């Protein structure tokens, strides 16, 4: 029997037998304390070195999420104040992810939250909003812009955190949610702008 065959036989029984001298020795292993108090050294080093953390703490993200909810609610209120728009009058309606894709020139990209599509949809909506902003009440413009900044901050924070922890499901979900909210805010704002003053 060569070594490889011998190894295979051993692998098939990976556990040590209780009567094995090695198993007995492992069973008797005891923990020992260090000879010195190690905490002062740890304390000195954590004081001296900057903390390498994700730039956004969980509590900051929680606040950002709360703000996004408030933004969404605020925009709902703003839209609800406006007269009902006729869909035909709006060039600014953006197709959502699951809406059928139109082919007419001038229509914006469908947003599926992948970077390119998202950025294209946002760019289109921001252009529309810029063109139509004079039709909105200045106070409304101020609220919209403030809320957009809040969402942009949340997106930037989530991206920064994801750079350091790309697989984090919470951060990914938070980023997707923030982007969805930005798109939703822009959609509502452009709809509002396109129907105001008609």
């Amino acid at each position, binding site marked *: 029997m060569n*070594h490889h065959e011998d*190894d295979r036989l*051993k*692998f098939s029984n*990976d556990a*040590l037998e209780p009567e*094995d*001298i*090695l198993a*007995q*020795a*492992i*069973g*008797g*292993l*005891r*923990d*020992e*304390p*260090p*000879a*010195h108090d*190690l*905490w002062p*050294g*740890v*304390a000195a*080093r*954590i*004081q001296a*070195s900057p*903390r*390498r*953390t*994700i730039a956004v*703490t*969980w*509590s900051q993200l929680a606040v950002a999420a709360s703000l996004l909810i408030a933004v969404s609610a605020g925009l709902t209120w703003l839209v609800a104040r406006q007269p009902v728009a006729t869909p035909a009058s709006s060039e600014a309606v953006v197709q959502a992810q699951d809406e059928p894709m139109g082919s007419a020139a001038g229509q914006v990209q469908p947003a599926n939250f992948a970077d390119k599509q998202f950025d294209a949809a946002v760019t289109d909506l921001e252009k529309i909003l810029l063109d139509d902003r004079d039709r909105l009440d200045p106070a409304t413009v101020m609220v919209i812009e403030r809320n957009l900044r809040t969402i942009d901050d949340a997106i930037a924070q989530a991206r920064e955190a994801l750079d*350091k*922890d790309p697989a*984090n499901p*919470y951060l990914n979900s938070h980023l997707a949610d923030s982007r969805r909210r930005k798109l939703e805010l822009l959609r509502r704002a452009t709809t509002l702008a396109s129907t105001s003053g008609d």
Partner: protein
Amino acid sequence: MPVNDVVLATEGDTAAFERVYQAHMPRVFNLARRMAGPDAAEELTQDVFVRAWQKLALFRGESSFSTWLHRLAVNVIIERFRKLGAARDRFLPDGEAVLDVAPAARTKSYDLSMDLQAAIEKLPEGARTIFVLHDVEGYKHEEIGTLLGISAGTSKSQLHRARQTLRTLLTKSRALR
């Protein structure tokens, strides 16, 4: 240790982090002692807790904090081995049943486990790491393979040779009593 201490430490509370340290230090120190030997264990333990402090914000609570810290400690220790260089033999050579090394130094009262600790230190670091992670800490070969960048088969064969070496050393030590 209250669960809140981890949360408080994540937010920068060093007093809470000291309590986290006190609760988990013995396990980390003894892991380092077994994997890297007593001379390096103290510094490695400090390295682990400094790294833990820096990375606490990445602890997502998906596993227990103890499991997270243990994995972090293993990574810090393996990283140290890598930094020390590849010049040293990391694994037991293929084709040789056991390392031809002297048995552990005789202790005053016969203690099989003390002999084992001394014998573990005679293994090359790669074989030692595999033995400690598998037989003492309960890791699977697939996990060890991922941590060390080797195949599960290599982990198995190294474990087999490490065990044979340790059995030989323990038997010789026992015979000398």
